[in-house]
């Protein structure tokens, strides 16, 4: 095998495929990165039985072939090479990398022991990369991190025709985002539960290429999702099991009080007041007439309070939140104002949505549901 390619192209391709390499692989070959040189192009791929990644780039291929080398080492080398063309030449036992006056010799790993990458499921449709990445990031804040509850560590993707609904929850808050996409078939209907970390990473790194192709619910293998853009494609295993059944019922049916507040001011205020809230003890918010008063701490501990202008419609209401949960929602909105809907009791979940102006109705398609705290009797 022998080929030559541009240094930056190599560094990008290797960095992207190497990011999902396992730190402690169950079998040594899984620490490898596979290089396939064929007519005019080279592909780099990685796979740990959960997530696969593959990048195909143009290259001057003198001699096609396949080789497996240590992915971490190759990524370190590629990142450090000078800005000159890079030449790879390999025989059965070693790979020689030459770039300018630098020369590396790497031992190869037994490529015949390397598992085949799963085939990318048949494409289901395409979505704008920026919109998709934003949506995934918005819902991921609510995903669980407890590996003992695997279904809650996922982002649920529901597709009905042109509508994609993303959802995540750690049982204390729940985030839902709706967006439109270009389905391959107008009557498509699919459901998948994807590990949140993997989906966030894939969406972020693929978004700059523009359109992202989503592939899921294929007949060949319905335990996979595939995402592809700009010569890169990645697959991920789906999470087995049921997510939250009928999650829409969690949103309260009735609203008694609505509060609208400028987001940046509220975020700053929550952060300030939360300085005295050790270990995520609650920040209390009391809404009435045209203000919200934030408080944290009590008794003999440090205390803080701050009043903020707010547009409040409906009866006064006071409730408390884990400040992290509140901030996660506010920071995910991405709009100038927040629209908070309360029921008539401070014990029911609160719906947090973004609005562009105080007069506007929430339409952004993003809803964040937060469970308040309760004083124990």
């Amino acid at each position, binding site marked *: 095998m022998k080929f030559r390619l541009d240094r930056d192209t190599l560094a990008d391709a290797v960095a992207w495929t190497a990011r999902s390499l396992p730190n402690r692989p169950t079998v040594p070959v899984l620490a490898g990165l596979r290089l396939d040189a064929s007519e005019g192009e080279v592909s780099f791929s990685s796979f740990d039985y959960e997530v696969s990644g593959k990048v195909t780039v143009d290259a001057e291929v003198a001699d096609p072939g396949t080789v497996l080398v240590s992915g971490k080492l190759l990524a370190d080398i590629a990142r450090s090479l000078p800005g000159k063309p890079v030449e790879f030449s390999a025989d059965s036992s070693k790979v020689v990398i030459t770039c300018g006056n630098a020369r590396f010799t790497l031992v190869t790993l037994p490529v015949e022991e390397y598992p085949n990458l799963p085939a990318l499921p048949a494409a289901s449709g395409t979505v704008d990369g920026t919109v998709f990445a934003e949506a995934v990031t918005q819902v991921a804040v609510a995903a669980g991190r407890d590996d003992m509850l695997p279904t809650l560590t996922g982002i649920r993707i529901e597709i009905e025709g042109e509508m994609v609904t993303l959802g995540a*929850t750690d049982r204390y808050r729940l985030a839902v985002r709706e967006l439109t996409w270009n389905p391959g078939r107008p009557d498509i209907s699919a459901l998948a539960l994807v590990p949140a970390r993997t989906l966030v990473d894939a969406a972020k790194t693929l978004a700059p290429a523009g359109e992202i192709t989503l592939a899921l619910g294929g007949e060949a293998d319905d335990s996979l999702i595939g995402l592809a853009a700009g010569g890169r494609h990645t697959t991920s295993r789906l999470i087995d099991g049921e997510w939250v059944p009928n999650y829409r019922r969690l949103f309260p049916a009735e609203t008694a009080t609505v509060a609208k507040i400028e987001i940046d001011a509220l975020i700053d205020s929550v952060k300030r007041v939360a300085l005295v809230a050790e270990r995520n003890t609650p920040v209390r918010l009391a809404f009435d007439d045209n203000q919200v008063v934030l408080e944290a701490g009590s008794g003999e501990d440090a205390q803080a309070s701050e009043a903020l202008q707010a547009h409040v419609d409906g009866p006064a209401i006071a409730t408390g939140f884990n400040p992290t949960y509140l901030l996660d929602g506010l920071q995910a909105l991405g709009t100038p104002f927040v629209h908070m809907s309360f029921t008539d009791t401070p014990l029911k979940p609160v719906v947090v949505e973004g609005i562009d102006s105080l007069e506007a109705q929430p339409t952004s398609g993003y809803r964040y549901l937060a469970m308040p705290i309760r004083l124990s009797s």
Partner: protein
Amino acid sequence: MAGVNSPPGRENGARIRATASVLHLDVDAFFAAVEQRDKPSLRGRPVIVGGLGPRGVVSTASYEARPFGVRSAMPMSEARARCPNAAFLGGRFGAYRAVSGIVMDRLRALSPLVEPLSLDEAFVDLDVDAGHDLSVDGVRQLGERLREAIHDATGITASVGAATSKTLAKIASEEAKPDGLVVVEPGTELDILHPLPIRVLPGVGPATAARLARLGVKTVGDLALIAEPDLVDLLGDAHGRSLHQLARAHDPRPVSSERASKSISVEDTFDHDVTDRALLSALVTRMSEKVTDRMVSAGHSGRTITLKVRLHDFTTLSRSATLPGPTDDSRAVTRLALRLLDEIDATNGVRLLGVGVSGLSDWVQDDLFAAATDTREPAPPDPELDRQLDAAVHTDQRWVPGMDVVHTQHGAGWVWGSGRGRVTVRFETADTPPGPVRTFAVDDADLAPSPP
């Protein structure tokens, strides 16, 4: 809403007192005394209360049993060997709690600052704007009136010590036992303290005593002669310093009415090792429910769940898991406790299980799913299930010696003993003379446990 797990308690700031205003009260042989009060035939006889199963230990031995060498925390089998003629009783905690409530009420009538140490023991700070005469005679009279009032109200005796500090007050009540009163005159603390063995000091157990013995230290007076740096070298910084202070009768610890509880737990030692995983799960579930109940009735919520497991070979494992926010929902506690149980290899048998909650708070992070299903109330307690679980891990406990029973014809009495399908009852109460003994079949329809 104090976010931390230490609700502010009333306390009188750390200081050196000029008067014997710290009072320590300790009921004499508490459980045994309540039994002798309610069971006239046992008065003047050795009575031992504790776990009666094969792995039980002694809770309390009456004064009549103590000359035989029976002590608290001794294995019940050893107590039976030392004092075979004693009455061995299983304990009636409802009765003990009722007496304790009366005692504590009496103490709270003296001062708002009462620090209970257990059901039968408490410190009282007399120097809290209540206008007590704090002269030695004044405290002595107050102590005697208190002892008399407690005896009148409960029929059992208590001993009282009073001094300028907690350590001395406790030593004084120990000296006063049984049924006595000792007030340490301010200024004479060292005369009392120095001749005593070092084990009287709080924090001196067998290990520390053995170390100190190597330096030739046997009495508190010997200890007071050791330089602080030498004690710190021997026992570590905190322990060395505090003993150095205590040996000089310097103990500024205030009486604190609310000891912030840091954790709440329940545990049970089984009569035989349990290997059945389904049974272990059921036991953990029941303990989780019980510990949540206790936590909630104390007004707390908790965040960290700890499972304690003692295996057949006495290896003791402790595993914890922490929720993102505090809960008071037994389902959440159970879920975590069961998950911790899953990680434990119990194939060779489990001797003891315990479930504890810590990270106590006064607020709760509720769960969206629970709020939506609106089933805050967990399954109601099922006495039949409880009975089955008990029967699975404890030998027959239907008629525990000492328990109160009632017979449709013979009236109220207590279980004297049972076995071979028979149960023997002595029909007497606190208000009757010693009564007759009768034997029934264990399933006699006329005989029933009497409610506490």
